[in-house]
């Protein structure tokens, strides 16, 4: 069994637009003398793929669909994205705990190891600002998949997968600490890296990096988040 991409990337729908960018170099308004003020681009993540995904990915997708239907959560998988040889299942927010259990226990799936939970913040993607990303490994079949759950910033709740994967304990605490995602059912959801009384969630995009200008040989170097940006 190999993890190499088993074929060309499956056919994909148009990408998902998550943000728009205006201008260039991070300057806006009358101060913008860059000549790029009228530039408008959008940020597009890879879109949903349609089967066949190629190789073992179809087996996993089919087995997951069958297991989900048997467990009464047949619409748990919102979409599947195959990109650069990795497969991502977008899971409906309310079903993540149930799906995690299926993925671990089903004979055809057997994802025994959770490599952790990570968060991503897309502030401009209305209603889907926060993403919780889970990486699962099946040692039995030597396969890796990714689960992704989108969570609205207005109601940052998602069920904990700690009951299925006890290793998610610290990872969920870390994601809560840095993004403010509240994992319901977690045994003790407290901050883990930042001090207990820390205000805010530092990895969110609206949280500043901080820093002070540094003087060097008469010139002043601004802090990293105030330097010219090409994004």
């Amino acid at each position, binding site marked *: 069994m190999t993890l190499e991409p088993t074929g060309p990337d499956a056919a994909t729908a148009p990408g998902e637009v998550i943000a728009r960018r205006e201008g260039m170099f991070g300057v806006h308004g009358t101060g913008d003398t860059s000549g790029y003020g009228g530039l408008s681009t959008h940020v597009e993540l890879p879109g949903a793929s349609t089967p066949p995904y190629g190789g073992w990915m179809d087996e996993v997708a089919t087995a997951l669909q069958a297991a989900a239907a048997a467990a009464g959560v047949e619409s748990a998988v919102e979409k599947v994205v195959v990109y650069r040889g*990795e497969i991502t299942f977008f899971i409906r927010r309310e079903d993540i705990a149930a799906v995690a259990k299926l993925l671990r226990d089903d004979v055809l799936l057997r994802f025994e190891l959770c490599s952790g939970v990570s968060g991503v913040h897309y502030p401009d993607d209305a209603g889907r600002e926060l993403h919780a990303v889970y990486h699962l490994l099946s040692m039995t079949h030597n396969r890796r998949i990714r689960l992704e759950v989108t969570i609205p910033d207005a109601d940052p709740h998602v069920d904990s997968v700690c009951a299925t994967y006890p290793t998610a304990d610290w990872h969920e605490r870390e994601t809560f600490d840095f993004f403010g995602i509240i994992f319901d059912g977690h045994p003790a959801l407290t901050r883990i890296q930042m001090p207990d009384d820390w205000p805010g969630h530092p990895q969110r995009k609206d949280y500043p990096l901080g820093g002070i200008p540094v003087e060097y040989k008469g010139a002043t170097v601004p802090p990293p988040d105030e330097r010219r940006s*090409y994004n």
Partner: protein
Amino acid sequence: MTADPYAATESATTEGKVYTVTGQDWDSIVAGIAEDHDDKVVVNMGPQHPSTHGVLRLILELEGETVTEARCGIGYLHTGIEKNMEFRTWVQGVTFCTRMDYLSPFFNEMTYSLGVEGLLDISTDIPEKAQVMRVLLMELNRISSHLVCIATGGMEIGALTVMTIGFRERELVLDLFELITGLRMNHAFIRPGGVAQDMPAGALDEIRDFVALMKKRLPEYADLCNANPIFKARLVDVGHLDLAGCLALGLTGPPLRATGYGWDLRKMQPYSGYEDYDFEVCTWDTADSYGRFRIRLNEMWESLKIVEQCVERLAGLEGAPVMVADKKIAWPSQLAIGSDGMGNSLDHIKHIMGESMEGLIHHFKLVTEGFRVPAGQAYVPIESPRGELGAHVVSDGGTRPYRVHFRDPSFTNLQATSVMSEGGMVADVIVAIASIDPVMGGVDR
């Protein structure tokens, strides 16, 4: 005489009396417990403690000398590396992540670079020599990391000779790193697209000498420890965690292999050409601290085997490229020793200033703006000395990482502290944690 503002004070809480102990001042505790006839003591150990492997805080509930509950407090070395990386270019990210797990810097660089290369879709374009050099550096790094683990683990149980010889040998590896990359740690040498520099002249001979010397010195560790009754008394059956426990808690690396399960990503999901090397996955079947120690010892032998094969291959790759051919990705890192000890390669400056307008544009664009990485996400884990190390790399199509999250094995493995030490003796907590080999730089990032 004025009151000492730093003197230990005593106070009471709803949970019981609080003793603040400094230095070796345990008399107040002994007296206090004798008064209250209370056997249960909650001891806060660390974050500044010589045997907690850096700034790890342990909260231990003791009954006599038995640990009834053990919890970890982490975050004392959190430096916001992941956040900082979002404000630098993709190549500069290497400079940050190399500082996370400071005992295995090449592995941090490697998993990040693999993720970025995956998104750039250039994984198959990395030159062979760069792949071999990466493997060489990682395996040398595995040796130095395991040496520190064995050395500090030995020191914590009083085996000071193990500590001194461990650091003696590690110094030899660091000398090789300095020769090849210019730095003893924090190298930023493995970069998206390849490695920064070619092998310096004479490096292969130095590595051959090192391998020959290590083959003489590694048996010393076995002689000192393997059958040593004191060493075994401290390690055997301590910090026990079986396969089910490892999988549930996400433990990988030596703790997982000590249960007899030979899971090693170098074999199971090879990267950087590991499938071309001849080496064995080391396992042990005791699932305890002693087994983890023996695995690390054996893995150093296997790493030496891989290093030898790398040297052989590199000898036939003289002058081959070490960076991807795409000039829009290959960071201009040609250096020469100038009058101040460091400087740009004169050949490169001549090229961009005198010969190639295109070369100058590439240099300028890469250094100021950096390259763009197609939007998407990647996770390419590797087998670090401590287990599965992976970087979840997310790009929004820009010149900076949108989000990078590192799944550090120290962080995950440290969760086993409670289950490994509860019910045991307080002295065994130290051994159990040492057998996990957590590096707080990686835990806290």
